[in-house]
């Protein structure tokens, strides 16, 4: 599902590589946790996957799409195939819960009827039924992250990238979000989660990839994490 082959990313000539010849293979339907200290290279790796950045060298293939052959105008189409969840939610502040989730379908050109059928189901999946008409500022942090997850999965992507989704949440809400990600994974979506939260990593007992100074320092099938 995700393949990185000797990928290097250098931001400036004088600086050390943010990623240094990283090779990685993630199978479909896997749940993978990416850990590492700040500046280790996790965010760079995610930015390469969402094509916010281009690699300096190496090969990236996601969902069968070879990034070497990807043209700029095809980038939006690629991003529609990857669900993304961010630490700071990145919701549209002037739009309701329903509109935020529907936005992901509207940009893909789905009809109003399809949107009206699909969105309530996904809102129910993330446990926000009854809050469709509320604006993001009227929701708690955990609820906002649920909206972000709903928006990410409403197009039923094959891959869900969650970049520190629990970073701004208290422990109870954090665990709720992780359980929601597990549920989505059970439906067949490949999940790539980055986190600093030791407790979450150790309780999940999933594949853990540790990045250190731009390199993969460990890759455990059922891993744990020590800060």
């Amino acid at each position, binding site marked *: 599902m995700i393949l990185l082959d000797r990928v290097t990313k250098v931001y400036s000539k004088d600086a050390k590589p943010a990623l240094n010849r990283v090779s990685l293979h993630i199978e479909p339907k896997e749940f993978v946790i990416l850990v590492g200290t700040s500046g280790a290279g996790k965010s760079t790796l995610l930015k390469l996957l969402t094509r916010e950045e281009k690699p300096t060298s190496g090969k990236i293939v996601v969902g069968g799409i070879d990034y070497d052959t990807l043209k700029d105008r095809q980038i*939006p189409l690629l991003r529609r195939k990857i669900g993304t969840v961010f630490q700071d939610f*990145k919701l549209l502040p*002037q739009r309701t819960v329903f509109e935020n989730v529907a936005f992901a379908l*509207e*940009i893909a050109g789905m009809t*109003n009827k399809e949107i009206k059928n699909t969105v309530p189901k996904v809102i129910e999946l993330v446990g926000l039924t009854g809050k469709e008409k509320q604006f993001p500022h009227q929701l708690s942090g955990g609820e906002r992250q649920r909206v972000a997850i709903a*928006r*990410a999965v409403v197009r039923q992507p094959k891959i869900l990238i969650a970049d520190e989704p629990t970073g701004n949440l208290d422990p109870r809400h954090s665990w709720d979000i992780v359980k929601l990600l597990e549920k989505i994974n059970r439906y067949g979506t490949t999940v790539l989660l980055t986190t600093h939260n030791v407790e979450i990593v150790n309780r999940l007992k999933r594949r853990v990839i540790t990045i250190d100074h731009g390199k993969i320092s460990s890759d455990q099938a059922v891993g744990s994490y020590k800060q």
Partner: protein
Amino acid sequence: MAKDANNLKNNRQFRRRYMTFLRMVRYGVNNFSRNAWLTTAATAVMTITLIIILTSYLMQHVFDDTITSVRQKIDISIYLKKGVSDSDIKTMQNNLEKQSNIEGVTYVTPEQAQKNYNKQNKDDTDLLKQLGVIEGSAGGSLLPGSFSVRVKDLGKINELKSYVDKNSLFQANLNPDVAPSYGDKQGAIENIANTAVFAERVGLFASVLFVVISSLIIFNTIRMAIFNRREEIQMMKLIGADRSFIRGPFIVEAVMYGFFAALLATGLVYTIMVLVQDKLSQYGVTVGPTVQIMQNYPGLILLATIVAGAVLGVASSQLAVRRNLKV
């Protein structure tokens, strides 16, 4: 079969584009109505910008009308001696009107000249009483008949002087006691002509300057408004929105700023023009024809202002959005 499939595909594409267009419009309208503070600020600045643009344009009209009006008031008098025959007067008038620099010629009879004089000095009763006695005893006007001549270009007044000096009919009939007035007023007339040209140029320069400054202000206001929403743009990109889908609502929003600001600006400028019309007229500023134009073509002026506002808004927002669309 293949043709039908092609038609179906084209229909779907058209419907999808139409749906996307409607969504962009809806998002633009929603942004406009839900970002109250931003909408108010941008519309207010846009209104001021359009007031400056509209006022600059209208002031050029007012200025032109005033200059024309002043020029029309400057006429040259060529005085004739007593007893010139009507046919000679007619011939001289026709000859004058044929001159290229002549706007119009009116013959003022001695009686009319006296009436005008009396009217101008109606408050000086002693003078009029004295004149009335003399006029009554003499049985006619004290003043000579004259041609009142209006020229097109005040700078070419010498052409008229030269013509009158060389024409034998004029030389035979000119009043020997009262010389034509263009000689006395020439300095003043040239000054007015030069000042008019200078003032026109300054006015045009000031208008262009105001328009440039106000355009920069609205550009920066919209740019700051969009800068505040850069994360929103970033998010749209990351979940796969096309550039056109991101730009669309901003275009709609900018057109709405332009529309409402144009309504406000046109209404305010018209009201102010009507209110100051009489006051300015007292100082010799000719506002009437410009107000008349606004009354005759309100739709056209409003449309032009809306277009100006929309163009400014759309250009500003697109430049600002483009900066945030990279990646």
